[in-house]
Each structure stands twice: as structure tokens, then as C-alpha cells.
């Protein structure tokens, strides 16, 4: 190792870049959170100031918890996100395993076809999807959202996971075959644990857009019983008046569950990386 890589100037520059990026990324989030604890006047008068004892106000949170069925919205969002995530990871990993492990005619073509969705946004098909959901009676159900999000998440999942699965040792899978393990056991017990870091990456990339989506809940499931958090928060945004306290409080609350999920996955991610390094 040359000493140049450890020079203080380089270390400082690297940290400066990382800190600047972190500040830029966190700033909007921080703004939402601090303003959610302020009175309406204070939000407009000094949007960048921290809450003080004079202008501290929980009115936003009170409104959110009183108004509508926010717990239900939360529950809906969680169900949709977690179930879609599970399906994306399961089917994505299975398709990736088939593509990387088995030689069959049209293997490459199939891989390209499955990855096509990365480049073509699923929203282009909204009208057709809506017609499909109406025809199958799935409008205003969480199932509709789960199906759409599963389809939306699969291309990237298949693409990333098949790259990683190609790197899993053939010898290991063959050892399993000689010991009489079924292809399913080989997939679930040998291969999946070894691509866990990739699974965590895919989980994070899949989860955030689902949780944040406003488009499909608005179109496919706008009923009171199936509203998600992002859609629920819209009731505080009026054409003439917007209840900023409530909007900011709702958004602050909406960050929490996704933050928890992120922490879980990122810990997996780090554990995966370090366990690989120690081996």
C-alpha cells in the first residue's frame, strides 16, 4: 500500500464530499421534521429555524391522529409495501436463479425481456392496467396495488440478482446435488444466503418507490378503506387552503416505518459485506 492513499488531505477531501452530500440529502427531510413541530405562523415566518418553546406546537400531529383513519392508512401502506417486497424478492430471486443456473434455449433473450421494465416505466401502461383491474374487479383493493408494485419491482430485482447469482460457486451447488439436495433446497439453503447483500440492496431500491407512490393508489385504490399514507396526506392539501401543520406531521410520521425497514436491510447489507471479507 502506498502512503498516498492515507494522506490527510485526501482523507479530508473524501470526508468533505461525503458530508456535503449527506447534508444535501438530509436537508429537506430535516426541514419537514422541524417544521412539523412548529405553529403555523412560525412555519411561514421562519421556515429554517428550529422550534423554540414559544412556537412549539403539536397541532399538526393532533390533527393527523384525529382526522380520518391514519392508522388504517399506515396499515395499508405497510401491507402493500411488505407484501410487494416479499413477492419481488421471492420471484425475482427465483427467476434470477433460473437465468443464471440453467442453460436453455432463449436464456439470454429471456433475461433481456425480463430486464426491459428497467427502461420502460410501468406508468406508461396505466390505462391498460386500470382497464385490467376494472375487468377483474380488483379496483379499490390492496391486491391491485400489490400486483402492480410486484411487476414494477421485478425487472431490477432479476437484473441485479442474476448478476450476483452467477458468482455463486458452481462447485457448491454441485456438491449439494451429489448430496441429494433438491434444486429448491439448493436455491433456498445454499444460494439465497450467499446473495443476501444483493437481496438487501434490491429490497431498499424496491421499497422506497412503493412506499412513496401516489400515482397508483390514486388511480387504482382511492377508496377510504384502501388509502395509503401518501394518498391520505393529500386530504390536508386543499385547492385554496393547505393545512401545512398536518401535511408536515403526516410526512414526518410516514418516514418512520420506512426508516425502520431501511435500518433492518442496511444492517443485513453490512453484515453480508463484512462476513464475505473475513472468509
Amino acid at each position, binding site marked *: 500500500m502506498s502512503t498516498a492513499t492515507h494522506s490527510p488531505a485526501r482523507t479530508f477531501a473524501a470526508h468533505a464530499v461525503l458530508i456535503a452530500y449527506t447534508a444535501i440529502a438530509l436537508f429537506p427531510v430535516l426541514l419537514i421534521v422541524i417544521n412539523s413541530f412548529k405553529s403555523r405562523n412560525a412555519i411561514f415566518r421562519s421556515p429554517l429555524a428550529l422550534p423554540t418553546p414559544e412556537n412549539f406546537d403539536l397541532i399538526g400531529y393532533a390533527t393527523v391522529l384525529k382526522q380520518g383513519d391514519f392508522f388504517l392508512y399506515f396499515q395499508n401502506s405497510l401491507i402493500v409495501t411488505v407484501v410487494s417486497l416479499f413477492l419481488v424478492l421471492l420471484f425475482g430471486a427465483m427467476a434470477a436463479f433460473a437465468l443464471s443456473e440453467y442453460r436453455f434455449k432463449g436464456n439470454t433473450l429471456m433475461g433481456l425481456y425480463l430486464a426491459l421494465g428497467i427502461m420502460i416505466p410501468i406508468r406508461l401502461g396505466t390505462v391498460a392496467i386500470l382497464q385490467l383491474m376494472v375487468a377483474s374487479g380488483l379496483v379499490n383493493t390492496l391486491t391491485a396495488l400489490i400486483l402492480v408494485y410486484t411487476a414494477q419491482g421485478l425487472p431490477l430485482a432479476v437484473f441485479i440478482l442474476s448478476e450476483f447469482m452467477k458468482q455463486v*460457486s458452481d*462447485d*457448491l451447488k*454441485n456438491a449439494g*446435488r*451429489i448430496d*441429494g439436495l433438491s434444486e429448491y433446497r439448493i436455491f433456498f439453503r445454499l444460494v439465497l*444466503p450467499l446473495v443476501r447483500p444483493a437481496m438487501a440492496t434490491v429490497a431498499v431500491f424496491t421499497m422506497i418507490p412503493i412506499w412513496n407512490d401516489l400515482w397508483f393508489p390514486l388511480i387504482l385504490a382511492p377508496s377510504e378503506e384502501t388509502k395509503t399514507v401518501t394518498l391520505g396526506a393529500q386530504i390536508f392539501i386543499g385547492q385554496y387552503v393547505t393545512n401545512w401543520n398536518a401535511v408536515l406531521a403526516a410526512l414526518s410520521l410516514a418516514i418512520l416505518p420506512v426508516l425502520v425497514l431501511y435500518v433492518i436491510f442496511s444492517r443485513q447489507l453490512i453484515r453480508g459485506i463484512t462476513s464475505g471479507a473475513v472468509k
Partner: protein
Amino acid sequence: MGSLSIQNVKKSFGKVDVLKGIDLDVKDGEFVVFVGPSGCGKSTLLRIIAGLEDATSGTVQIDGKPVNDVPPAKRGIAMVFQTYALYPHLTVKNNMGLGLKQAGEAAAEIERRIGVASTMLSLEPYLERRPAELSGGQRQRVAIGRAVVREPKLFLFDEPLSNLDAALRVNTRLEIAELHRRLGATMIYVTHDQVEAMTLADKIVVLNAGRIEQVGAPMELYNNPANTFVAGFIGSPKMNFIDGARLGDTAKTIGVRPEHILVDPNKGDWKGVVIHAEHLGADTNLYLDTEKAGRITVRLFGEYAAEPGTTLYATPVNARTYRFDEAGRAIAR
């Protein structure tokens, strides 16, 4: 129990023909080594025997029964891989026991066999460890143990020593030889290293570009190579090949092993200059540029003081030269 017969096995990956018709018989209890340069199809042939890969055509018989449609776990084989291929999430004990458990063997019997194998391979202290907590040599012993507990008719080894350092390689080689003597099972061993082949094999199969070049006992291949490929592959340093015309011989190529050349400072057949000398203690390898035979390698036993630039005369031992025709085939003496 444990004979193997391969008839006209061919294998193609798409347009690439990797195996071009392999015929081979292995008797019960034999230690057979497949040797050949990297990419010649050794592993592919071994995987076809194991059932991990389907042959494009041809049949594989184990104990006289065709096994083309039998899955790997039911062929009565066990395999040891170059990369150990231990299950990372299982302890050493469970790594060894998994195959038996999968086959529905009774717990007591599994326990007994693991006991026997771990004693044989000195693995008792590590039974509760995971592969990540073992050294390379220990991991390979576990992989061998996993094969032993299956009590297979046929052991398959795919370059099991390639990932070990030189000292461990010699030790593990001895262990495998001892294992073969003790179990008396049939073993097929793949390597690109001719030293491993020579030291372990009852019978060596030399493969090149998807074909068998020659099959025979180690000394048979050394003394009577069928062609220039085998002659060059077996023996180290490599055999010297000299253009027949240069020596006034009717054969296309003349082959002389480095150890079958004598040198003398004053007189001899080929006058030459030392280009480089390798002093290994037990032997000395000299590289000579000769007027008559071109660049040749000479292997001398013991120490020999010769520095680059020295003039020496080399004389081949006539009884031990080989003659090869246009196609590279050996001409009978």
C-alpha cells in the same frame, strides 16, 4: 463393486466440441488419474461421470449398469472439488452428514460413519466448527471426509490440491494415497499436474483437446510415450524435441529426456554453450545452445558447477532416445 466404463462419450457446448469421443474402462479398486492441460475437458468428463452434466452422446456405466438417467445422488459416487465447496452455514459434522441424512440413513449410522471418517482424517477437534473457522488444508480434509462418509463405489476428485500451498499439497497427496490403500475404493482423480499424476496413479489417462492421447501405468507413459504430446507432458523438465533432419535421422522429430543426456567438458556429440543454470541441490538443470541440436535442457543429478558461457559437450544416451513420425506418433524401436 466400483467399475466404470465409458463408451464414445461426446460433449458439446453449443458449437464447441469439448469431448470428441472418449472410451475408457476403469477396473474396481483402481486409482485412475486424468491429466492434461487446462481446458482440455477433464472436469467436463468428470462431471459427466458424476451426472452433473449430460453427455451429448455416448454411455456411462457404473458396475455394468448404464447410469445416463440416474441422478448424481443415486450413482454411488462422491466428489471432492477444487474449491472445497463446503456448506458455509453448516458445522463440519453436518457438512459430512448432510448427504446421508438426505438419503434417509439412521442417525446412529450417520454418527458412526462421521466418527470413522473424522478419526481417519484427524478432524475430531473441529467437528463443531464452521468452514469459515478452518484453514485451507482442514477444509479440504473436511471435503474428503464428506466423500468418505458416503462410502461410495467411486470417488471423484477434481484438482483437490490446486488451492493448497506446496507443503500441504504433498501432505494431502499422501493422505489421499493412504485413503485409497485403506478403503480399496475406485478413485478417479483429475489434475493438470503431472507430478500428482505420476505419484498417485495406477493408471494415467492423458487428455488433450477433448481426446485421450494415451492410457497406461505411469512408468509405461514415461518409457513408451505414444506421441509427442504425451512425451512432452510427462516428465519434468520437459523432453527435448530435436528436428530429425538436423541430426541426419529419417524420423521427423527426435526426443531425448533431459535426464538422458550426459555432459563432458572435453568431448561428446553436441558442442554447446551454457545459457542458464538452475542449481536445485539434488539436481542441476542446464540450458545449452548447441550447434547441432539447438537449444536443449540437460538434467544432471547432484551439484554441477557450470556457469553461463561455459562450453560443454552433450551426448544423448542412445538407448533412451525416441523417434516420432510426421504426425507426432512414436516410431517403434
